[in-house]
C-alpha cells in the first residue's frame, strides 16, 4: 500500500496546495514541500527493502475480470528515479517560491508541479505496463499545463501544444508496443516481461513492438527527429524546465529504455535503432546548442544532446554501457537542474535570456557565477566534476565499439566531435554570460539573488563536486543498486575512479577539452556560417506542415459533410445506415424467411392493418395540410395501441392510448403558433431522392422485422403453438435452430416476478423493481425535459393568430358550457380511475406511467374546457414541487433499502389485511411507482399548461379580425 499511497499523495496534495495558496506564498510553498516530503516518508519502508536488493511489489485489485490490477514495484532503478523526482522536486519547490513574481499564481504552479510529480512517480513505480502508460500520459498532460503556465503568452501556448502533440502521439505508439508485449508474453507485469527476454526477442512481433516502444520513448526523451518540442517547451517558467526538462520528464524515455533493457536489448535491431538515433541526437544537439543565443535554448539543446548520449549508451547494449547510462542519468539530472536554476537566476536578475546582451555578470553576481561555472564544468566533462566520470565511461564504451563492427570507428569519431562541441557550448555559457565585456542594454541591473533562491543550486553543485571527487564513497552504492535493477543480473566490474591510466577514453577526453577550447576561441566564422543556414533544417517546419495539413483536412471534411443543413445530415445519416445495413445483409447467407410457424390472419386484423396503412399514406400525401396530417397521425397511433392489445401487451396499449391523447393535444397547441400549411417544395428531384431513401429504409426495417418474426425466440417455448405439453420438443427444436445460442432472460422475470417482486404484472414489476434503476433514470429524463421546456418558454414571443388562414376564428365559444360542466363532473371519476390503475398496477395492467398519463389527461381536460384562468384558481399552478416530490419519493424508496443493509432500490413486500377489502399485497415498489406517477403527472402538465398559457396571452375575443363577408355568412352560429 505504501507505494500506491506515495504515488497518489501528490495528486491528493495538489488541490490542497491550490486551496491554501491564497493565504500566502509561504503557505503554498510549505504545503507543497510537505506533500513531497509525505510522499517520501511513505516510500521509506519499501525503500529499506529495495536498498537491501529486494524488489518490492504491491498489488491491488483493479479490474480483475480483465486481468488488470494496480501493481507497484520498487527496485533499485525505481528507487533512484523516485529519489531524483522527490529530491529535485523539493529543491524546485523551494526555488520556485523565489523565482515566480508576485503577479503569478504560485498555488497554480505548485498544484501542476505536484500533479506532475505524482504522475512521474507513478511511471517509475509501476509494475503493470498499462498502468505505467496511464501515468506516462498523465506526465504529458501535466507537462502541458506546466509549459503553458503563462497562458497569456502565445509562445507558451504553442510550446505546450507542441509538447503535448509529440509526446502524446509517442504515448499512443507506446500503447501499441505495450499491447504487443502483452500479446507476446501473456502478461503486462514487468516481472514476467523482464524474465522473458528470449521469448520476446525470438517472437515475430518483436520488431513492431520494439519500433512502437522506441517511438514512445524517443518522443518523450526528445530524440531526433522528435527533439524539436523540447526547445519550444522552454517557454515554461524556469523551475519547470529545471524539473521537467532536465531531471524528470525527458528522462522518462530513457527510463523506459533502462526498464525494458533486459527484455528488448541485445539484438541487431536494438543496437542500430537505439544506438543510431542516440548518436545522431547527441551530435545534432551538441552542435545546435553552441549556436543558440537564448540561455535556456542552449541548455535545451544540450539536454537533447545528453539524452542522446544516454540513449547511445543503452544502444551499445553491453552491461557496462548500461551502468554508464544509469550513471549519466544521475549526473545529468544534477548538473543540468543546477544550470537551469542558474539560468533562471540570471533571467530573474537581468530580465533577459539573450547571451548577446548578457555579458560580464561576474562583477554583479560572483557567487552565482561560481556555482554556474562548477555546473557548466560538469556539463563539459572536466575532471573532478561528476560529468567527467560518466562521460569517460561513455568514451571508453564508444571506443570499444570501434573494432566490434564495420564502420565501428564512426562512433568514437562522432562521440569525440560531440564532446568537442559540448566543451565549446559549456565554455560559451560561462564566458559569454559572466565575462566577455559589459552587459548591453539590460532591463534590470543585476545583483545576487536572495539566499534561499541560491540554496537549491548550492545543494546541486555540492553534489556535482562530491560525486566528481569521491565517486566510490557517494554514488557507488546507489549506482550499483539501480544498474543491478536495470540489468536484472550480476553487475559487471566497474571502477568509478578519476584516473584510469592512458586509455583511449582519456585521449578522447583530452581531444574534446582542447578541441572545445579551440573551437570556442575561433567561433566567429562558424557563427557566421550558422546564421546563413539558420532554419534550413528545422523539424518544426515539418511538424507545422503536418499539423496545418491535418487541420485543413479536418476543416475540409467537416465543411463538406456538414453544410449546416439538417436535411442533408439526416439524408446522409439514413443513407449511411442503409449502406451499413445492406453490407450486413450481404455478409450472411441465411435466408430472409425463417422456419417459425406463422400466426393466421383474421379479418378484423386485416381490416385494422389496411385502415392503418391507408391512414398513414393519406397523412403522408396530405402532410402539407398540417392539421389534417396531425389528426390522421393520431388515428395511426390509436391503431398502434390496438396492435398492442391484440398481441398480449395490455400495459403498452394503455400507455400508447394515453400518450396519444397528450401528444395530439400538445401538437395541436403548438400548431397554433406555426403556419397551418407547409409551402410546396419546388425541387421534384429532392422529393424523389427522399422518397427513394424513405422507401429503402422502410423496406430494410420491414425485412428485418420479418426476418426476426419468422424465427424462433431463443430459449423460449413457442407458447402460441404449444398450448399444452410438447414444450420440451419445441425447446429442443428451437435449440437446434439457433446459430448463436443464448437464453432469453424473459423466463427469469416470469419466474421471479411473484416470489421476488411480489407482483403478478411482470411488465410493471420489471419497471419498478427488477430494473428500477433504469426507470429512475427515465423519470429523471422526463423531469429534465419538462424543466427544459419550461425554461425555453420563459420569455414567450410566439405570437399565434386568433384565426386560421381563411380567416375563420378557431373557436366560436372559448368554453362551451356543456363540455365545461361535463368535464367538471367527470373529473372525480377520471381521478378515481387513475388511482385504481395506479394501485392495481403491480398485479394487473396499469402502474405509475399509465396512471400518471390518465391523471394528466383528466386535468388537461379541465384546462381545455374551462380555461387556464378558471382552473388555476382551483389547482396549484406550480408543478415543480410535484415533479421534485416524485423524484424524491422514488429516490428515497431506493435509499430506504440501503438503510436496511440491502443494495440501492431493493424492494420488499408483504401481505396486509385491510378490513372490509381483504388481504392484499403491499410492496415497497408501489411507493416507487407513486414517485413515477407524480413525475409523469407533473412533467406532462408542466409542458402542456405552459404551452397553453401562451395561448391565453394571444387569445382574446377580438383576436380575429374576421373579414366582413365571413362575418355575415357565419353570423347565425356565433356572437363576435
Amino acid at each position, binding site marked *: 500500500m505504501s507505494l500506491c499511497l506515495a504515488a497518489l499523495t501528490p495528486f491528493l496534495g495538489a488541490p490542497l496546495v491550490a486551496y491554501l495558496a491564497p493565504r500566502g506564498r509561504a503557505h503554498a510553498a510549505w504545503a507543497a514541500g510537505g506533500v513531497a516530503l509525505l510522499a517520501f516518508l511513505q516510500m521509506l519502508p519499501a525503500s529499506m527493502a529495495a536498498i537491501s536488493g529486494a524488489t518490492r511489489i504491491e498489488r491491488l485489485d483493479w479490474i480483475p475480470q480483465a486481468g488488470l490490477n494496480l501493481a507497484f514495484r520498487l527496485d533499485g532503478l525505481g528507487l533512484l528515479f523516485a529519489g531524483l523526482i522527490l529530491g529535485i522536486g523539493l529543491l524546485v519547490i523551494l526555488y520556485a517560491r523565489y523565482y515566480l513574481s508576485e503577479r503569478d499564481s504560485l498555488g497554480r504552479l505548485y498544484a501542476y508541479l505536484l500533479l506532475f510529480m505524482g504522475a512521474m512517480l507513478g511511471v517509475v513505480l509501476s509494475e503493470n505496463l498499462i498502468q505505467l502508460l496511464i501515468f506516462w500520459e498523465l506526465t504529458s498532460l501535466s507537462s502541458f499545463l506546466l509549459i503553458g503556465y503563462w497562458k497569456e503568452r502565445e509562445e507558451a501556448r504553442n510550446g505546450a501544444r507542441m509538447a503535448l502533440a509529440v509526446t502524446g502521439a509517442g504515448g499512443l505508439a507506446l500503447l501499441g508496443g505495450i499491447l504487443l508485449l502483452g500479446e507476446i508474453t501473456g502478461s503486462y507485469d514487468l516481472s514476467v516481461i523482464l524474465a522473458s527476454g528470449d521469448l520476446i526477442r525470438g517472437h515475430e512481433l518483436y520488431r513492431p513492438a520494439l519500433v512502437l516502444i522506441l517511438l514512445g520513448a524517443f518522443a518523450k526523451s526528445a530524440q531526433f527527429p522528435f527533439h524539436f518540442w523540447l526547445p519550444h517547451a522552454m517557454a515554461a517558467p524556469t523551475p519547470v524546465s529545471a524539473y521537467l526538462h532536465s531531471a524528470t520528464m525527458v528522462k522518462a524515455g530513457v527510463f523506459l529504455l533502462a526498464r525494458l533493457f533486459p527484455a528488448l536489448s541485445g539484438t541487431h535491431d536494438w543496437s542500430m535503432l537505439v544506438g543510431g538515433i542516440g548518436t545522431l541526437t547527441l551530435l545534432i544537439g551538441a552542435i545546435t546548442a553552441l549556436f543558440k543565443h537564448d540561455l535556456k535554448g542552449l541548455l535545451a539543446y544540450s539536454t537533447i544532446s545528453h539524452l542522446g548520449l544516454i540513449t547511445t549508451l543503452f544502444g551499445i547494449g553491453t552491461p557496462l554501457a548500461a551502468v554508464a547510462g544509469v550513471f549519466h542519468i544521475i549526473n545529468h539530472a544534477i548538473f543540468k537542474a543546477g544550470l537551469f536554476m542558474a539560468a533562471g537566476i540570471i533571467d530573474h536578475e537581468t530580465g533577459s535570456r539573450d547571451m548577446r546582451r548578457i555579458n560580464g555578470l561576474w562583477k554583479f553576481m560572483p557567487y552565482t557565477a561560481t556555482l554556474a561555472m562548477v555546473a557548466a564544468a560538469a556539463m563539459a566533462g572536466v575532471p573532478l566534476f561528476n560529468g567527467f566520470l560518466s562521460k569517460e565511461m561513455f568514451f571508453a564504451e564508444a571506443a570499444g565499439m570501434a573494432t566490434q563492427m564495420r564502420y565501428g570507428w564512426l562512433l568514437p569519431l562522432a562521440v569525440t566531435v560531440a564532446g568537442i562541441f559540448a566543451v565549446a557550448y559549456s565554455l560559451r555559457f560561462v564566458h559569454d554570460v559572466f565575462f566577455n565585456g559589459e552587459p548591453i542594454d539590460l532591463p534590470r541591473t543585476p545583483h545576487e539573488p536572495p539566499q534561499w533562491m541560491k540554496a537549491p543550486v548550492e545543494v546541486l553543485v555540492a553534489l556535482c563536486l562530491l560525486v566528481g571527487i569521491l565517486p566510490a564513497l557517494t554514488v557507488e552504492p546507489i549506482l550499483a543498486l539501480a544498474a543491478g535493477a536495470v540489468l536484472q543480473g550480476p553487475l559487471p566490474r566497474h571502477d568509478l575512479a578519476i584516473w584510469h591510466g592512458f586509455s583511449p577514453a582519456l585521449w578522447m577526453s583530452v581531444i574534446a577539452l582542447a578541441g572545445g577550447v579551440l573551437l570556442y576561441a575561433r567561433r566567429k566564422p562558424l557563427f557566421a556560417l550558422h546564421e546563413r543556414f539558420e532554419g534550413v533544417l528545422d523539424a518544426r517546419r515539418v511538424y507545422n506542415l503536418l499539423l496545418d495539413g491535418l487541420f485543413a483536412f479536418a476543416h475540409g471534411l467537416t465543411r463538406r459533410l456538414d453544410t*449546416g443543413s439538417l436535411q442533408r445530415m439526416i439524408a446522409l445519416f439514413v443513407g449511411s445506415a442503409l449502406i451499413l445495413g445492406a453490407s450486413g445483409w450481404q455478409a450472411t447467407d441465411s435466408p430472409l424467411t425463417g422456419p417459425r410457424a406463422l400466426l393466421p390472419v383474421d379479418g378484423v386484423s386485416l381490416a385494422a392493418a389496411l385502415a392503418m396503412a391507408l391512414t398513414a399514406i393519406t397523412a*403522408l400525401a396530405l402532410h402539407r395540410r398540417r392539421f389534417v396530417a396531425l389528426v390522421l397521425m393520431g388515428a395511426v397511433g390509436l391503431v398502434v395501441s390496438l396492435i398492442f392489445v391484440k398481441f398480449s401487451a395490455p400495459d403498452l396499449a394503455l400507455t400508447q392510448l394515453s400518450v396519444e391523447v397528450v401528444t395530439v393535444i400538445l401538437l395541436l397547441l403548438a400548431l397554433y403558433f406555426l403556419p397551418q400549411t407547409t409551402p410546396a417544395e419546388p425541387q421534384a428531384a429532392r422529393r424523389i431522392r427522399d422518397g427513394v431513401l424513405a422507401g429503402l429504409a422502410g423496406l430494410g*426495417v420491414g425485412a428485418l422485422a420479418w426476418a426476426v418474426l419468422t424465427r424462433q425466440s431463443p430459449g423460449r417455448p413457442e407458447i402460441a403453438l404449444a398450448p399444452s405439453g410438447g414444450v420440451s420438443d419445441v425447446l429442443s427444436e428451437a435449440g437446434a435452430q439457433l446459430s448463436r445460442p443464448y437464453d432469453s432472460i424473459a423466463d427469469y422475470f416470469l419466474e421471479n416476478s411473484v416470489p421476488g417482486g411480489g407482483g403478478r404484472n411482470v411488465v410493471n414489476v420489471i*419497471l419498478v423493481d427488477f430494473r428500477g434503476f433504469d426507470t429512475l433514470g427515465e423519470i429523471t429524463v422526463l423531469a429534465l425535459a*419538462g424543466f427544459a421546456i419550461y425554461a425555453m418558454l420563459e420569455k*414567450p414571443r410566439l405570437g399565434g393568430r386568433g384565426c386560421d388562414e381563411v380567416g375563420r376564428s378557431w373557436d366560436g365559444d372559448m368554453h362551451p358550457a356543456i363540455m365545461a360542466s361535463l368535464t367538471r363532473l367527470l373529473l372525480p371519476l377520471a381521478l378515481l380511475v387513475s388511482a385504481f390503475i395506479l394501485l392495481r398496477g403491480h398485479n394487473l395492467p396499469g402502474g405509475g406511467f399509465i396512471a400518471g398519463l390518465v391523471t394528466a389527461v383528466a386535468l388537461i381536460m379541465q384546462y381545455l374546457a374551462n380555461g387556464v384562468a378558471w382552473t388555476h384558481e382551483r389547482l396549484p399552478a406550480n408543478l415543480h414541487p410535484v415533479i421534485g416530490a416524485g423524484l424524491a419519493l422514488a429516490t428515497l424508496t431506493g435509499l430506504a433499502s440501503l438503510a436496511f443493509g440491502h443494495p440501492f432500490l431493493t424492494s420488499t413486500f408483504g401481505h396486509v389485511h385491510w378490513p372490509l377489502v381483504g388481504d392484499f399485497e403491499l410492496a415497497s415498489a408501489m411507493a416507487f411507482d407513486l414517485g413515477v406517477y407524480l413525475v409523469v403527472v407533473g412533467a406532462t402538465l408542466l409542458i402542456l399548461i405552459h404551452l397553453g398559457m401562451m395561448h391565453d396571452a394571444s387569445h382574446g375575443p377580438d383576436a380575429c379580425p374576421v373579414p366582413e363577408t365571413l362575418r355575415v355568412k357565419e353570423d347565425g352560429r356565433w356572437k363576435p
Partner: protein
Amino acid sequence: MEALIASLIGLLTACGVYLLLRGRTFPVVLGLTFLSYAVNLFLFAMGRLTVGRPPVIGTGLPGYTDPVPQALVLTAIVIGFAMTAFVIMLALKARSELGNDHVDGEEGG
C-alpha cells in the same frame, strides 16, 4: 399475421423517414412521431407476436409472452412523448427567434 406487422412497421418507417427529410419543423416532428411508432412496434416485435398470453402471472393461461420488450417499449413511449414535446418547443422557439419554421433557420431548400 407476421407479414402484416412487418409491412406496417416498414410503412411507418418509410412515412417517418420521408417526413423527417422535409424542410419545415412541423412535418419533421410528425415524422419523428411516425418513426417512434415504427421503432416501438419493431422493439415490441422482437419478443415475437403472441396472441392472448399477456405477461400477468396467474391468469390460468398456458405460458406468457416475453415481458422484456414490453417493459422497454413502455418507457420508450413515455420518453418519446417527452422528446416530441422538447423538439416541438425547440421548433416554436426557433420560429419566434428566427421568424421562420425552416429546420435550417433560413428560408429556402
